[in-house]
């Protein structure tokens, strides 16, 4: 059975949806950050799949996935830092405690 682009898009879609649902429903701040990274991973899988199947010359999807990886890691580092600074005041990792940023 041949693996087509739709198979990879399905996996990317599931990972993205799982991240979206997790970032909305989960109460733990760290799990929310991990869920956001799952969303980025789903988007990256789609980018690379499109570049591999549809773009055999320039591979623009690879470059975009690379940008997303760098920006996502920096965003997570900054978010973790802000979370830790706020945790010192709130003493809670429940996201409902962080309404007043």
């Amino acid at each position, binding site marked *: 059975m041949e693996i087509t682009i739709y198979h990879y898009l399905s996996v990317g879609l599931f990972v993205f949806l799982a991240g979206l649902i997790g970032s909305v429903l989960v109460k733990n701040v760290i*799990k929310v950050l991990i869920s956001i990274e799952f969303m980025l991973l789903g988007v990256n899988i789609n980018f690379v799949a499109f570049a591999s199947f549809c773009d055999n010359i320039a591979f623009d999807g690879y*470059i975009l996935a690379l940008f997303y990886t760098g920006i996502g890691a920096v965003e997570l*580092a900054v978010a973790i*830092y802000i*979370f830790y600074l706020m945790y010192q005041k709130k003493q809670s990792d429940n996201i409902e405690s962080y309404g007043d940023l």
Partner: protein
Amino acid sequence: MIDNPVIFYSASFLILLFVLMTLLAKNIIYSLLSSVVVFFLGALFFYVLGSEYNAIIQAAIYGLAVPVIIGVSIMFRQEEAGGEKKSAKFAIPYLTLMCAGIFVLAFIYLVMMSVAMVPDTFCIKELEQVNSFDNISVFARGIFVNYVWAFELVSVLLTIVIAGLSLFRKKGA
């Protein structure tokens, strides 16, 4: 590109399983470990799709560096919840150091791209082959020729983030 249904379906099943485990696990450490597996499986997908460089970056940054800073933040959080304020004094500098490690990793891979950019990179007569080390020149051409303004914008953004974090820390102290 590796067109193997066994690899694809087994990796898909595992990534779905570990994504659900990450979201549903009650212990945050199990959740973090499951997310590491998900990130490595994402790198496997990149490799299967023919983008080895993306796979290496994914495994290095998301598989190794990001879980370490999340783990460190969990560790400090649990220590503070246990009432040990002593270690919290060193927590912020240590966490700053770990976050700086992420920036260093990002810097290293940008330097790698610069080193990989040889004069032949600008020769666009030949088509690049996927599944070969020519991917490096494809990336270099994409970043330094086709998307050079986006690259510069990202560099400025990273610089602003570093400056903002240091100011934020100084203000907090």
